[in-house]
């Protein structure tokens, strides 16, 4: 926690050390494999259930291998679950919110780490305290604010609260990363006549790329998954995001297990794919910032 390393650094080097002895450890490998199978089994069952007809599921039970395979559940779930709309809304929110949030957080992080801002410690304390605040303490005033601004049932109304709740973690990770940029580099640019803004854009941001990517990914996951603000601020189907849409869908499909499984998969597949490909950054970022986005 004291120092933040390049996200991939800590994890990868340790792996090499272990991989020096690829043989042996049969006992732990077997034990861990069994544990991993148990852990992943809900998702495996979900996939198996989603690709079989409901009649097959009912006749043979949830733990059997499908007698026939079908993709019909996915097209049914896609239509009834309104996923075309919720996907669009969630994606739009992601594009509007995540880069903006990371950018303003990086600016604050730069001010804290390199610009010797007055009351820096007090600002940091106040911002880090935000990590501990549950969302529900803010929902009544946020709802009132959105209503008086005419921004209920609008994705735009979500952006402010989403930004605010993302800032503490982003600032925590980014400022400790920016702090490690050698002062000499910043100083040299300043002597060459570069202003603070230019130093930020051409030196600090490029050098912070690993931390920025990590924070972008974690913030994207958090934004995609956010539920409570979306629940209270959005009412019409046309404006719902994936988590709220999935909740409605779950109610309608409570007796159609195969359709429900397909719908859940539709909602989580983008996150699972992104996680699988980007896990190095996610793992590094969590270890560096030691907080959950």
């Amino acid at each position, binding site marked *: 926690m004291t120092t933040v390393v390049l996200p991939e650094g800590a994890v990868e080097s340790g792996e090499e050390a272990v991989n020096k002895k690829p043989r042996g450890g049969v006992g732990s490998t077997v034990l861990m494999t069994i544990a991993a199978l148990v852990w992943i089994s809900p998702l495996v069952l979900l996939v198996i259930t989603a690709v079989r007809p409901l009649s097959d599921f009912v006749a043979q039970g949830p733990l059997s291998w499908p007698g026939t395979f079908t993709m019909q559940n996915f097209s049914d779930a896609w239509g009834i679950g309104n996923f075309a709309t919720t996907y669009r809304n969630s994606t739009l929110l992601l594009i509007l919110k995540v880069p903006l949030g990371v950018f303003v957080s990086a600016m604050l992080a730069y001010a804290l780490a390199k610009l010797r801002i007055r009351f820096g*410690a007090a600002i940091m304390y106040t911002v880090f305290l935000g990590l*501990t605040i*549950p969302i529900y303490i803010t*929902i*009544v005033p946020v709802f009132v604010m959105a209503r008086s601004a005419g921004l209920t049932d609008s994705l735009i109304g979500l952006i402010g609260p989403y930004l*605010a709740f993302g800032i503490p973690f982003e600032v925590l990770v980014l400022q400790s990363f920016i702090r490690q940029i050698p002062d000499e580099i910043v100083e040299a640019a300043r002597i060459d006549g570069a202003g603070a803004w230019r130093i930020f854009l051409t030196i600090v941001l490029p050098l912070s790329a690993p931390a920025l990517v990590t924070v972008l990914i974690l913030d994207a996951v958090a934004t995609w*998954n956010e539920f409570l603000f979306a629940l209270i601020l959005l009412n019409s189907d046309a404006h719902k995001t994936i988590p709220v849409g999935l909740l409605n869908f779950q109610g309608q499909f409570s007796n159609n297990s195969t359709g429900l499984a397909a719908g859940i998969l539709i909602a*989580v597949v983008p996150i699972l794919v992104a996680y699988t490909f980007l896990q190095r950054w996610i793992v590094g970022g969590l270890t560096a910032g030691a907080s959950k986005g």
Partner: protein
Amino acid sequence: MTRARTRHGGLVAWAFAAPALLVYFTFLVYPALSSLWFSFTDWDGLSPGYNVVGLQNYASMVDDPVVVRAALNNLIWAVVTVVVPVVLGLVLAVLLNGKVRGKPLLRLVFYTPAVLPLVSVASIWGWLYNPEYGAINAFLRSAGLDGLAQPWLGQDSTALGATMVAAIWLRVGFPMLLYLAALQGINPDLYEAATVDGAGRWQQFWHITMPGLRPAHYVVIALSVIDSFKVFDLIYAMTYGGPGTATQVMGTWMYFNVFQYNQAGYGTAIAVVITVVAIAVSIPYVRSQTREHAA
């Protein structure tokens, strides 16, 4: 950090800090303080006006059996969904740090549930727990344990436990990752020296691994506790606080009061209580973070 202004500081620094701070104060600090104000009123959440009623909402909470139940559930939730994932995460990390094949894949598997939307986790487990079509009862029946098959989420005795199992499923990965990173920072020479001295694996765990993980313990436990107080999504989407009030926590009971029973003043008072507890518990952590980073 509070050194006198240098040529770099001053207004320029504030200009960089301003956008994020503005958003943070407008949409987090101000609403949180505003809730504190509402908690002293009888506002219903709809009418234009309200009366200031002092501490009446707080006094009413003592007589509200659901608040008592919710507070107790929050406490149980905090203990169980912190202790179990932290211990399991530690065990997994120690095993993964040893001689195990397929380590990257294993690590991927255990952290996967943590990236899913909580609503989807609730859907998945709600489906697994389904009394008729759920995999859990099907498994028990196929194992000849028909007597154990039951409506897990539909009865008082098992509902809270069932939701906590889902929480444990998704929360094991986080401590595992942090412990894994911390374990890789422990000097391997220490283990070799201990082996030469004839120390067994168990002794090595208690005398080298555990002391080496002390900073990690602190961070893992602090963050898990902070996270546990935020519980809302999983309960709301899985049981809606039910059956009856069996799985109500302060977050959900606050929500129901505000948005179903039109008692915004009372609801915010509930939120204030749990938030104050959460902050009080987390202050040492926040202070240590600030000290480390501002140093």
